[in-house]
């Protein structure tokens, strides 16, 4: 009985303890359920995203770059087929062995192999390593032959930038290369970048990146835990960049470049009404195709060390004193401000009796002197003495207003080129601000012949000439075609305005902001006077570019020579009076020439600068003459093409 009681007691203990345990179990199960609720219901979205992140991997596919064409739709920058070798890293068991095999097949050097190892370190294990982005056909076929022995190797047909006119256009179109960390900061590149994508490094390629770069595609794959692709889920196709249409005529550009062959300098040609830059050559030049896959050390050194500085785009980044090419503008300023009667006579007495101001002597370039000169003759024969006096009377501030108005002193193409220079048109305020000195009258005097502080780019000189030649109307120079403007209307409007003068004469001299395609002159007769003097300079005896003239009115042009000193001329120099060939290259004068053509009903302006070329009339004017003929010969074609007859190209 006692036992029985004990047993009942023991049974009770067991059962009680069991219930306590059961309660604990229920609690713990509730804990699990609430945890499940948290994970699967509260935080479901978070884990769903994580799960998708796990299983879906995106591969960006590079877009094709937009092409660049000239004004006749000729392709200037295209995408060529290239042979590449890629390595799929997660398919390779032994990277060293694979690289060794590849090295033997396509012949990589030690340096390239080191680079590949470095590149690989930066990649994720499922990424693709581009071993070579430009194989020769021979290498490519060899790789295909040994493909079965190469783990993870993938021969790829891809595209890369190709410039068919290589050297002729590099200063305009620029080139592409691998993106630098700085490039990647630019929003248009950052948004569209895909590893391996080439980006514009200079010129149109660089400034029109937004147009050209295109949009990458996305391939979404489901991958397993080791990163192996299981299936493609989604493919958003990449979109090629947009076409960029230039105003350049490649035929003229090529010819201009050819004319500059072996020299350092620039030739610019522009439509005087539309502002379309037809040619903008800079010499010497280099091959942009070499940059696409990374230029090799030797070629780079060659370009860098060339004393003629091929990397400088001389048309917009080269700064020169305009020399006598500035004279038409000085004359125009003097006439417009009514400073001087064009019939005023000044005597040029040669080096023995130079122009004197406060005891300082200013010589004319002509040793014997020009004798008695009126303004027209002074322009035609480029007499310095006349311009010294005229500049003195005019004053630098008025001259600078006109010079700036006609396109000097500010960059011409806006932000298209990051190396374009503004040049400098000095005035008294500028000097006080920049140099903290007051202006000397002597500086005004030499400014009158385009020397001294004044600095211009060849393209500015071309623009200046264009804006005089079109009768004094402001134009907007550009190198990328603007389809939003109907240029025929503008030409007609300007021509109508020209013929209607002087019906609505206005005092423009206070007018600071003149709109595009509006007149900039005060009196049309002043413009006409200058144009006529330039005609004389080229087409009349004793004119400085008389030898380069055309008698055929179709090609007849008017221009102005210039010789820009690169150093101060000493009395000794004057005594020696050496020929250009006898002077050390670096000390020779720059030869300049500006012109417009045809003289009757002009349409094109041109500027030529040959660095250290000696005199403008001997070196620069003949080149201009040749190019003008080519431009005029192509004018009809250009006109027809622009008016919609595209079949001609």
């Amino acid at each position: 009985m006692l036992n029985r009681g004990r047993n009942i007691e023991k049974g009770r203990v067991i059962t009680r303890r069991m219930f306590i345990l059961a309660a604990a179990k229920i609690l713990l199960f509730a804990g699990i359920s609430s945890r499940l609720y948290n994970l699967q219901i509260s935080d479901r979205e978070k884990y769903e995203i994580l799960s998708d992140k796990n299983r879906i991997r995106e591969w960006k596919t590079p877009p094709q770059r937009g092409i660049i064409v000239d004004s006749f739709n000729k392709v200037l920058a295209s995408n060529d087929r290239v042979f590449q070798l890629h390595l799929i890293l997660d398919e390779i068991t032994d990277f060293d062995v694979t690289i060794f095999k590849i090295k033997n097949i396509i012949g990589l050097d030690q340096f390239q192999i080191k680079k590949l190892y470095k590149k690989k370190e930066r990649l994720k294990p499922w990424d693709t390593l581009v071993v070579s982005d430009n194989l020769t056909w021979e290498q490519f076929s060899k790789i295909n032959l040994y493909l079965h022995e190469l783990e993870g190797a993938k021969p790829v047909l891809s595209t890369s930038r190709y410039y068919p006119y290589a050297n002729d256009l590099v200063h305009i179109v620029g080139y592409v290369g691998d993106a630098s960390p700085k490039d990647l900061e630019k929003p248009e590149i950052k948004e569209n970048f895909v590893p391996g994508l080439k980006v514009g490094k200079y010129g149109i390629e660089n400034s029109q990146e937004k147009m050209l770069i295109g949009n990458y595609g996305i391939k979404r794959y489901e991958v397993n835990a080791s990163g192996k692709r299981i299936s493609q889920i989604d493919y958003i196709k990449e979109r090629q960049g947009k076409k960029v249409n230039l105003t350049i005529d490649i035929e003229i550009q090529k010819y201009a470049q050819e004319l500059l062959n072996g020299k350092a300098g620039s030739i610019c040609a522009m439509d005087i009404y539309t502002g379309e830059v037809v040619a903008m050559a800079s010499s010497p030049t280099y091959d942009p195709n070499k940059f696409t896959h990374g230029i090799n050390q030797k070629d780079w050194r060659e370009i860098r060390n060339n004393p003629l500085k091929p990397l400088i785009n001389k048309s917009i980044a080269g700064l020169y004193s305009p020399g006598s090419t500035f004279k038409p503008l000085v004359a125009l300023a003097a006439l417009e401000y009514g400073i001087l009667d064009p019939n005023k006579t000044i005597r040029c007495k040669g080096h023995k009796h130079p122009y004197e101001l406060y005891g300082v002597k200013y010589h004319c370039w002509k040793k014997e002197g020009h004798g008695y000169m009126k303004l027209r003759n002074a322009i035609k024969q480029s007499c310095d003495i006349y311009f010294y006096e005229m500049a003195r009377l005019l004053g630098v501030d008025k001259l600078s207003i006109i010079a700036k108005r006609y396109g000097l002193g500010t960059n011409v193409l806006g932000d298209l080129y990051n190396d374009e220079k503004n040049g400098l048109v000095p005035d008294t305020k500028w000097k006080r601000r920049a140099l903290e000195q007051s202006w000397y009258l002597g500086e005004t005097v030499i400014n009158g012949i385009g020397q001294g502080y004044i600095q211009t780019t060849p393209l500015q000189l071309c623009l200046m000439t264009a804006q005089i030649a079109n009768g004094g109307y402001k134009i907007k120079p550009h190198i990328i075609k603007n389809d939003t403007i109907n240029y025929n209307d503008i030409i007609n409007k300007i021509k109508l305005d020209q013929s209607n003068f002087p019906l609505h004469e206005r005092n423009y001299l206070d007018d600071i902001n003149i709109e595009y395609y509006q007149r900039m002159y005060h009196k049309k007769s002043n413009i006409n006077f200058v144009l006529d003097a330039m005609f004389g300079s080229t087409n009349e005896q004793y004119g400085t570019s008389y030898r380069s003239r055309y008698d055929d009115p179709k090609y007849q042009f008017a221009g102005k020579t210039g010789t820009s000193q690169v150093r101060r001329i000493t009395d000794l120099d004057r005594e020696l009076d050496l020929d250009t060939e006898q002077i050390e290259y670096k000390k020779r004068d720059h030869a300049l020439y500006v012109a417009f053509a045809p003289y009757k009903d002009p349409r094109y302006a041109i500027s030529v600068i040959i660095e250290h070329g000696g005199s403008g009339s001997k070196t620069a004017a003949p080149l201009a003459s040749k190019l003008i003929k080519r431009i005029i010969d192509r004018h009809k074609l250009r006109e027809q093409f622009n008016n919609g007859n595209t079949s001609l190209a």
Partner: protein
Amino acid sequence: MLRERIQASNYSFLDKLRSVDYLLILLIIAIGSISIFAIYSTEGGKFSFYTKNHIIRLSVFFSLFLVLSFVRVSTWYKNAYLFYIVGLILLITVLFFGISASGAKRWINLYFINLQPSELMKIAVIICFARYYHRIQSSDIQSYKFIIQPIILLIIPCYLVIQQPDLGTSILIAGSGIAIIWLAGLNIKYFVYSGLLLLVSLPFAISILKPYQKSRILTFFNPDRDPLGAGYQIIQSKIAIGSGGFFGKGFLKGTQSYLEFLPEKHTDFIFTLFSEEFGFIGSIILLLLYILLIYRIINVGLVSRSFFAKLYCFGFATAIFLYVFVNIAMVLGMLPIVGAPLPIMSYGGSSLLSIMLGLSIVMSCKIYNQEQISVY
């Protein structure tokens, strides 16, 4: 009539059949069937090695369960110590002749099966303790002799299993043993004291852990410590379960397991796979099935007359609870990853065998629930 039945040691077969707990069998079949689908899914929907093996094992061990269910409960009682000793011998055998896999020596090659004796030991400890406390008077339980003896009985297998090393199984063995000591009525103060002692000695215990065990525990507290290494399993498991959502991704559509992000998906992480594919609702249903199973086992204990049967059933129910809880809490990131299979669901012969064996003893308790076992 009742008297007769109690005394009559020879139950008629019909009586036996009538006493069978059919709900329990149904639950086993239900969980077993779910496990087949889950294992089938781990193989990406292919009927191959794991699925085939699992089905074969399930049917063999289920049949064994049915047969062993008719073994008299007194037979189990009589052989309880023998069971324990055989388990110990097997554990020692493992120590010398065991097969190693991924750094642990846990198995004995029996040619037709690689047996993991630590799994059998889980049951052996319970049956051994049930017998041990069956005889002891409640007044004697608090005496030192009867406290020290079971502790020694428990420490030996736990120590042997830790040596393999297999912390998870060792904890589960200890857990079920302690549960029976608790059920037998040992004073609560001892549990409180030893709990405090454990807390105090925890730093010391951690210092003797193997580096991988330490890293698992550290990882448990911060899975992002090493997301591709030790934390990987927990992170991926949580992603799989969480992304399953309410209804799950659907059968055979669990991307985490299909794309091999899940480790050990047929064994320790089978619940993760199931939960990813069947979602919250599926997980709760599975959980309910386990709760029902535990309830049925407890119920057998309640209707049994002998202390042995009661202690065994309650102990075994607690053990099943522990296995389920530790496994699920582990894959949910609530406990460190210690390597504990989910009963019936996880792929693995020894684990399945021991669970079926344990269940057959429960069933025999049910069938022979009126059988008295002498206390002396």
